[in-house]
């Protein structure tokens, strides 16, 4: 059969029917493979070759969270493929086919949405491929389709017929693309909910996995950028004589907002960059430090802000006087500090622009690059590679580092590909941090000790204002990501008021794994713990009594407490003056509810060690329980790094940190033992990439309060950490 014909047939069929199923024609970047002369491509998400290989086209970035394995599982489940025949390929940038269904037409990865938004879509993709194979077999064998079984990549009929996917793809490709498919009920799942190994384990344990950093192209140069010493500084003058003379340095490129050195390799480029003599105009640059920002935030916290949530009249109750629990919580700027420092490969050609990147926000980056270059978005080709972590950083609302790489390529004389590589210092100092926040929380209790009024003022920069996300993320001056987790406080409080002061300064800020929940979970869960203590009640029982309207919160809280042995006496005294405590926290983010019980040990010298964390999670149907456990473990470790150590501080507008010696992160000796318990559920899956992060901070803080009777309110705790 002529493969061109079959594709044309499919196109005709798709244009006349198939509302949901789009066509997967001529996917860019596909390997020419002798075995795939007549592949079955019923939609944009799956391709089956005549050798039986099932390729799932992943519309989401794999940055460690297991999205590729999860997406492939959804397809393979409904296809009844054998896991060993499944492989994954990154999708092209094409919002029409690969949009994030939660992001209104835009393609990208974030908000713990990969599996959740693909849940139905990718199962349908698998089911329609399966149906076409079944119909082809029914025709060939002359038996009713309903009598054909599909199991682990093999179709069979009781009359003795048997065929693998590969034998049937050509015939199946001639079958009409189904307009409706029946999906399995959870009882029929064979892969979902079971142990399915990650698809990227082998390549990532042998050094073969390819990241942006590893891209090698013919005639490629490496670019290392000199970033401004302070945010808002502008390049006035440049003496590049010394740099240009260095061996391996090819070109010094001055572009819109900076200067880069192109070298034959990284080291030449970096040596050249370091040899530049630069004169910066800092007259309009950031001049404040973190301390000044915080002082002004404290002033704002004394004034009413824009109201994000109002229930009852908290002001009136608080103004009545009586005992008020009040605390100021301070959260520093945080860098993402993924293991792979930011980088991007760009090749400008007369007819367009090709980019190789751990691409987290295709549509936004494509639009930004197209606008800069005066191209159509489809002339910007994006090749999706693995990202060596991101934690939100590669989904930059201003496409910052991608545009920087493109700007360098545009300004350079060199016409071949350019790999821009940031050093770790660039990565930590160039901004786009989790914003600095101050929360002031004031709470009064009723005669039973329950919260009567709760007022929370949040002060900090808005992430979405001034970005393309403003239109749907900022309403009436409230950036939803500044107040999420507080404005929707789960606890029953009759008088609740959450206010926001959105501040402005020159520090670029953006989402950081779990976004607003990184600070709201801490302040709300520490405050509720203080309330429980003031009411002389058990922290778990106290919370449960206020969670009537939130059974999922209550269920994970009970499960975590039970598995942690909360009801059993807890040994607080350890050897050599060691004091131990345990604390609990529960928080919902991205549709997933997580409770954690942390056990910490405080040594005489003030050093603390988190020894054990028991975690319970309700994330809907557990597609891959082992990946879920891994994400919760990782989220706890990532959150703990921030709570113990994480702080980017500014002094006189200058970022003080530069590398892992002064921006310490968690190391293996600080990692607690972790148990993850997954609550059974029949709800559609919600995300797990971020929700492990928010509860660990308050759980540790509450454990410290168990020891010392006071709650830490200024983060990080590093001055006392081991």
């Amino acid at each position, binding site marked *: 059969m002529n493969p061109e014909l079959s594709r044309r047939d499919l196109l005709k069929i798709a244009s006349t029917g198939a509302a949901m199923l789009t066509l997967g024609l001529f996917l860019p970047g596909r390997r020419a493979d002798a075995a795939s002369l007549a592949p079955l491509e019923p939609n944009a998400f799956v391709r089956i070759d005549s050798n039986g290989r099932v390729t799932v086209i992943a519309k989401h970035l794999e*940055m*460690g*969270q*297991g999205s590729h394995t999860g997406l492939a599982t959804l397809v393979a489940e409904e296809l009844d493929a054998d896991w060993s025949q499944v492989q994954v390929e990154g999708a092209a940038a094409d919002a029409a086919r690969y949009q994030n269904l939660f992001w209104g037409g835009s393609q990208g990865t974030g908000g713990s949405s990969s599996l959740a938004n693909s849940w139905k879509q990718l199962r349908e993709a698998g089911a329609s491929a399966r149906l076409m194979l079944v119909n082809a077999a029914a025709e060939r064998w002359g038996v009713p389709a309903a009598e054909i079984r599909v199991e682990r990549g093999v179709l069979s009929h009781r009359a003795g017929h048997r065929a693998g996917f590969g034998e049937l793809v050509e015939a199946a490709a001639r079958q009409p693309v189904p307009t409706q498919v029946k999906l399995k009920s959870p009882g029929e799942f064979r892969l979902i909910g079971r142990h399915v*190994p*990650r698809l*990227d*384990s082998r*390549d*990532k*344990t*042998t*050094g*073969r*996995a390819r*990241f942006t*950093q*590893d891209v*090698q192209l013919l005639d490629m140069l*490496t670019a290392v950028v000199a970033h401004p010493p302070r945010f808002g500084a502008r390049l006035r003058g440049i003496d590049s004589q010394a740099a240009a003379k260095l*061996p*391996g340095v090819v070109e010094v490129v001055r572009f819109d907002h900076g200067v880069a050195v192109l070298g034959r*390799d*990284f*080291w*030449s480029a970096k*040596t050249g960059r370091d040899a530049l003599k630069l004169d910066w105009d800092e007259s309009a640059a950031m001049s404040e430090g973190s301390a000044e920002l915080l002082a002004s935030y404290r002033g704002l916290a004394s004034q009413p802000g824009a109201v994000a949530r109002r229930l009852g009249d908290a002001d009136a109750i608080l103004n009545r006087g009586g005992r008020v629990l009040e605390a100021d919580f301070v959260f520093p700027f945080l860098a993402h*500090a*993924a*293991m*792979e*420092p930011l980088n991007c490969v760009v090749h400008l050609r007369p007819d367009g622009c090709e980019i190789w990147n751990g691409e987290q926000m295709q549509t936004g980056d494509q639009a930004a690059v197209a606008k800069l270059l005066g191209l159509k978005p489809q002339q910007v080709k994006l090749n999706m590679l*693995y*990202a*060596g*972590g*991101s*934690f939100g950083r590669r989904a930059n609302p201003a496409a910052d580092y991608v545009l920087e790489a493109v700007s360098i390529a545009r300004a350079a004389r060199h016409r071949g590909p350019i790999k821009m*590589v940031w*050093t*770790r210092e660039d990565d930590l100092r160039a901004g786009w941090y989790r914003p600095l926040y101050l929360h002031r929380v004031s709470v009064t209790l009723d005669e039973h000790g329950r919260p009567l009024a709760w007022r929370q003022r949040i002060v900090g920069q808005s992430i979405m204002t001034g970005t393309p996300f403003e239109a749907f993320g900022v309403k009436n001056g409230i950036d939803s990501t500044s107040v999420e987790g507080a404005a929707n406080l789960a606890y029953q409080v009759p008088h609740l008021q959450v206010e926001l002061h959105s501040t402005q300064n020159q520090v670029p800020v953006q989402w950081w794994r779990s976004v607003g929940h990184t600070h709201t979970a801490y302040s709300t869960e520490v405050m509720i713990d203080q309330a429980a203590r003031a009411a002389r009640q058990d922290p778990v029982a106290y919370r449960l009594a206020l969670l009537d309207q939130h059974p999922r919160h209550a269920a994970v809280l009970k499960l975590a407490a039970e598995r942690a042995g909360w009801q059993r006496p807890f040994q607080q005294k350890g050897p050599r003056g060691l004091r131990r405590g345990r604390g609990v926290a529960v928080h919902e983010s991205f549709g997933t509810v997580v409770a954690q019980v942390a056990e910490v040990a405080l040594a005489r010298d003030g050093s603390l060690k988190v020894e054990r964390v028991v975690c319970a999670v309700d994330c809907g149907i557990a597609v891959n329980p*082992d*990946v879920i456990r*891994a994400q919760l*473990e*990782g989220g*706890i*470790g*990532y959150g*703990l*790094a921030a709570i113990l150590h994480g702080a980017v501080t500014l002094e006189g507008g200058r970022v003080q940190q530069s*590398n*892992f*010696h002064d921006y310490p*992160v*968690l*190391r*293996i*000796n600080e*990692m607690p033992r972790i148990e993850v318990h997954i609550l059974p559920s029949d709800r559609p899956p919600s995300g797990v990439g971020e929700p492990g992060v928010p509860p660990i901070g308050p759980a540790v803080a509450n454990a410290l309060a168990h020891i010392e009777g006071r709650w830490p309110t200024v983060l990080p705790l590093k001055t006392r950490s081991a």
Partner: protein
Amino acid sequence: MYEIHVNGRAHQVDAAADTPLLWVLRDHLQLTGTKYGCGMALCGACTVWLDGQPNRSCSIPLSAVGKAKVVTIEGAEGRATQAVQAAWQKLDVVQCGYCQSGQIMSAAALLSRNQRPSDAEIDAAMGGNICRCATYPRIRAAIHEAAKQLRGRRA
């Protein structure tokens, strides 16, 4: 021009004397399994073996490599490496994977000299390897698992 020995072969390298071994491996020899993470021997992503010992290749200038036998993740062989890689895959240790070449080089070096490491010994050997995905519990478990396999095979 320098001659260095990498993965069992001699290579002529035309690079400045101060070029870190990491960038010689990555940019001159196209051995990209060894990763750049910090450039200051703080994170361990660039860990390779020099004469069997784990070293941070980002902080070893080309001129200092001398006659040392350099082994990268691409050339890592032997029972300890195989056991570590098998355990890593069995327990699905990896997440983003960027640090894992370095983790594996450190872990295999540990197990080649100590086939019954305690948690404290694992902390000491692996303390220089950062993983931002915090795969640490699985790294620890996989090292114990690999150690068990190595002891079992010898018996």
